[in-house]
């Protein structure tokens, strides 16, 4: 009771940012703690499998190995970059198109949306298995029809072919996450004010011009957000690829997450794994920061927090 009153007093007197404290503490303890431990591990030789590797300090040895002596990491790195940019771009274009298409029908047919969301509701690990079945060369429905319509020959193995497997994985990701992009952009479209569109029509703009000059600029913040969220998650893509190919054939689908998984959970080379992970984090962080600042969507939002004028 007493503490309640103290908290109330605190809140009453405008120190309400203290409400942030629980969530910040949670993040610091549960996430930042382990994160810092991971960063520290990166400076040690900690290895769970090999004897006498108990986590002695080794300075930047792991970093040096990463930068100078690990072609597979850099292969994975560029592969992941291609994957992220590829899927996010395609998902964005598909998602935007689908959202515009749905925009006119959504009011009457909301259930369409729920149906569309089904791929996104499946666990990624289940998605991996489902597509493994669909793409199987022997009894896969998808492969069967590809062959049936002459798009592939009897010898084609989608997941076994180094040049086909990555596009296939990207397509699966597009299948799973385009609905999410559609959903968010659709939400944005529905919340746009009508006036600018009416004004543009009165100004004599044609549909395509309206789209380019009014819709896209107004949607900019939400597009930025969805690109950001998808980009971050695409970077972490693991479950599907792991189930589908395990990184193979060869290293043709060895994305960063798969590679880090091997370092950590196959080799148990935690010191080096930490450095790999930290590198990934750094790259994502830098890219997102640059993107965030570039789009600057917080500029618009701080307005809502303005003072009540007299």
């Amino acid at each position, binding site marked *: 009771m007493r503490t309640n009153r103290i908290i109330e007093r605190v809140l009453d007197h405008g120190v309400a940012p203290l409400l942030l404290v629980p969530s910040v503490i949670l993040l610091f303890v549960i996430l930042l703690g382990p994160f810092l431990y991971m960063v520290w591990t990166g400076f040690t030789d900690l290895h769970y*499998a090999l004897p006498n590797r108990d986590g002695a300090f080794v300075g930047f040895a792991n970093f040096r190995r990463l930068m100078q002596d690990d072609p597979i990491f850099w292969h994975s790195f560029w592969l992941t970059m291609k994957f992220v940019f590829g899927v996010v771009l395609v998902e964005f274009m598909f998602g935007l198109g689908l959202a515009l298409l749905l925009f006119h029908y959504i009011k009457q047919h909301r259930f369409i949306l729920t149906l569309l969301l089904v791929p996104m509701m499946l666990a990624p690990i289940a998605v991996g298995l489902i597509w493994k079945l669909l793409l*199987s*060369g*022997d009894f896969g429905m998808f492969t069967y029809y590809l062959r049936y319509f002459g798009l592939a020959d009897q010898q084609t193995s989608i*997941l076994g*072919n180094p040049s086909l497997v990555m596009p296939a994985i990207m397509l699966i990701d597009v299948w799973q996450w385009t609905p999410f992009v559609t959903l968010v952009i659709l939400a944005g479209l529905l919340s746009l004010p009508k006036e600018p569109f009416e004004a543009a029509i009165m100004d004599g703009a044609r549909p395509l011009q309206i789209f380019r000059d009014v819709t896209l600029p107004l949607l900019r913040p939400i597009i930025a957000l969805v690109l950001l969220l998808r980009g971050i998650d695409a970077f972490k893509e693991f479950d599907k690829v792991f189930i589908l190919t395990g*990184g193979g054939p*060869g290293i043709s689908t060895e994305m960063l997450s798969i590679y880090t998984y091997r370092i950590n959970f196959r080799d148990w080379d935690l010191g080096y794994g930490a450095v790999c992970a930290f590198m990934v984090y750094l790259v994502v962080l830098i890219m997102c920061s640059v993107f965030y600042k570039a789009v600057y969507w917080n500029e618009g939002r701080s307005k809502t927090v303005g003072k009540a004028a007299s």
Partner: protein
Amino acid sequence: MIGRSLVGRFVRSSASLAVCGLLALQGTEAMAWSLEEAAAPYEGTTIRTVGEALPPLEAMAKLKSEFESRTGITVEIEMYEHSEAVNKVMLDLNSRRGRYDFILQPHRELGRFVANGHLEPVERFMNDPSLRDPSFMPEEQLYQGLWHEISWYEGQVYGFPFTALNMYMWYRDDLLNDPNERAGFKEKYGYELKPATTWQEYTDIAEWFHRPDEGFYGTALQGKRHEALWYEWLNFLYSFGGDMLETNSGSECGPVVVNSPEAIASLEYYKSLLAYSPADSLNYTWDEVMALMQQGKVYQMIMWNDATYAVAEDHEASTVAGKMGFDIVPPQANGEPVGQVEGWTYLIPAGSKNQEAAYLFIQWMMEETQQLNQHLNGGATARPDVYAHPDVQAISYSQASMDTNAAARPKPTIPESPQITDILVRELSSYLSDAKNAKEALDDAAVEMSELLGDCAPLKYPVE
């Protein structure tokens, strides 16, 4: 190369056998040993284990109630998929929290555990008359080669085989005996159709039966980037006279020989079989090839003993049950047979608080009755007497499995061995997908292995 497999071990085993024999004779209390009495101090405890969710473990889950009712010790079993089971154990051991009282692990993990002090040697329990069942004599009752391969490390015994897995040749016996096929084959190749005894014959047979337009294939390779690929290739590697490291036991480190001319030849030969394997082979593990065999789409393959039952005997799941034949893989050039074995072993973590109770359970599980039950339910026992049992002998694949066990070739169990596996899987897969040629792939693997192992493992076949 040949002599190192069994003989040396027999000598060591005999020595410890003598010690145990002495113990057994020591006094009357040993004679009066009973499980109930031995377990009395541990009544009420709960022991927990973890392993791969497979029929042998499921069989154990069914068997354990008898042990529980006799001893008052509760056994809890956690079943996971293969790599999950390994990861769970790794994390548990390294955090030293001792959740598991005994573990079931593939023996390639052994070196890691021992080197980091995670395991309790079982000799202590075996020498304790209050725990040791005098009728349990692993020195006589187990395939010695297998036991040493699977459960020993650097001369210390850490447990007993849970499953003794091995690979041998599977073929379609019904087609082999089809008069038309036999006649046609003889006409084309000039000799009688029979189970392959050389790799040339293996290729001829695969070629003969390879009819992709009819959806039937000469063989099926496990070409996905996955451990399955490595295990399968080992059969070829050994048979071609190659190896990964030049050592005398799994716990030793030695020169890297994985890029020997024999190894390269074996890999090139392995890839040549892709021509008689389905298009999707680079996407297969044991899972898919078994499904293909069950559907009757493949003539022959090299496959695991613990998967045999579901194809050869299970009429529900398999269209070819009762139509299968089995034999050991083609031997080395000198005629010496060779077997690729892999085992899951019972181990007792050093952090366990109920080691004695765990030992009692393991010892009980190793009894013939339990072993027989497990074996008939899809297990792979390491006890010859179980193999000799009429029920087991009636199973179509028992002879092939026994032959393979007898020719068991040790493979590295040093701490780095899982990493070696990972390197090789990657390089084999690179070769299969045409990213490298065989020599490049094995050279790259050899260099990486040598760097990983350090001074003890120079390259025997230098890479230029």
